[in-house]
């Protein structure tokens, strides 16, 4: 019980930082005119370290907080939420520990993003976004594509680039954390340089011998 409490306070401290990373990342990308969203690094990090539930919460709250700056973002809460949920599940399944599987994770997360965001852009906003995507959608529609197909196609490239880069950045950040810090998180063990479990195992052995 006590264990859980200590764990929860560091998560409570971490989530605002993750949310801030999301907001500032998104602003940075637009300031530097980089064609990425860069607004889910914090969510994926939260999912990686703390699991699907916290990942989902962080993602959903990202939508809420972004929504305070621009109410349009509120409609995307399911999308931002799913990034965190997926990152948590993938992390638990050890799909984010090494680079090859990390790439696969990035692709999976991107696909989920495309699948969930496109209907929202098409059905709720009639194909309009505040990014250049709206132009691509218009062009595709003029070429004869329907609204939803046009949205799906236009989401593809940006999502893939964005999520793969986000996963990679998260990987580098987690690898930069000390074992001692990682040990405070539920899934931190997966990313430690030295395995904590091994040490505990040795201790048990000693006790038995005595």
């Amino acid at each position, binding site marked *: 019980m006590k*264990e859980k409490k200590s764990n929860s306070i560091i998560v409570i401290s971490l989530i605002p930082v993750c949310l801030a990373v999301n907001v500032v990342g998104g602003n940075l990308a637009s300031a530097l005119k980089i064609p990425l969203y860069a607004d889910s690094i914090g969510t994926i990090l939260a999912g990686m370290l703390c699991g699907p539930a916290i990942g989902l919460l962080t993602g959903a709250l990202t939508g809420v907080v972004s929504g305070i700056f621009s109410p349009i973002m509120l409609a995307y809460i399911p999308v931002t939420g799913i990034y965190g949920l997926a990152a948590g599940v993938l992390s638990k399944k050890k799909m984010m520990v090494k680079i090859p599987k990390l790439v696969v994770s990035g692709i999976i997360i991107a696909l989920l993003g495309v699948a969930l965001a496109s209907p929202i852009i098409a059905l709720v906003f009639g194909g309009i976004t505040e990014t250049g995507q709206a132009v691509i959608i218009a062009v595709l529609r003029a070429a004869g594509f329907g609204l939803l197909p046009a949205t799906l196609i236009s989401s593809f490239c940006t999502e893939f680039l964005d999520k793969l880069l986000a996963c990679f950045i998260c990987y580098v950040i987690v690898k930069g954390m000390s074992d*001692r810090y990682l*040990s405070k998180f539920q899934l931190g063990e997966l990313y430690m340089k030295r395995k904590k479990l091994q040490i505990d195992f040795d201790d048990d052995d000693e006790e038995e011998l005595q």
Partner: protein
Amino acid sequence: MEVIRMNNLSYRYPTTEEYCLKNVSFSIQEGELCAIAGSNGCGKTTIGNIIRGLIPSFHGGEIEGTLEIFGKSSKEISADEKAKRIGFVFQNPFTQNSGIKETVFEEIAFGLENIGVGREEIITRVMDIIEMLKIESFMYKHPLELSGGYRQRVALASIIVQNPEIMVIDEPTSQLDPKGTEEVFEIIKLLNRQKKTIVLVEHKMELVAEYADHIIYLNEGTVLLDGTAEDVLANEILYKKNLEMPQVARLGFQAREKGLMIEKVPITMDGAVKIFAKYGKCVKDGGGSHGES
């Protein structure tokens, strides 16, 4: 009255194999300003964390040996009670805040809100602390706009207002400039005058020499010396092993080595002036090298 007692305590962080503290024992009396001193990496911050209860509950790891606080085993004291009765202030002025308050006044009140103190009493206590620590000039400023020194004073205020019986203060001035350091130590002096038990983790020896009633000097995870400021900081062992000590004390030992037999090794600047002044007078009067007037 004894308020903290550590008995043969050893500790290892959860991800390392080496013991950070080995068989540490000491006793701290109520109302004293006890400094945990030593060079970096010797385990003093760890001791501060253990007394406060962050080890093992927050940082993990296993403790061997015992810790008694307020006469009870530390394990029997709930986390809530530790939070209310043992205050904790640490180095970094920029991470020590609630993160949700927009004025210094509300920031200081945060802890009392969490404890459930009534609104009227909160206002009274916060106003008292602001007056005591001379924070009026910036009491309505946004905490994020403050410099490191001011932030550290607000951090101290936020903890002191909770009226804990023990204050654990971990290197509070290492990130501050000399003026900030002076202001923080003014507050620590004030607490000392109010007879609060203070456990001060500090590696700046000059400050330790000036303020501490009792010093526990650690080296590589074990207690090397334990006694009054004079006993510890003017002890030859520190000089021989080239460990951290006040500059004037080092000077004193070097002076003796060169043949100037001063009567005792000073630990503060004032003390040094008095001792060397005696010797100086002797030279002026054409006396020998023994520094007696």
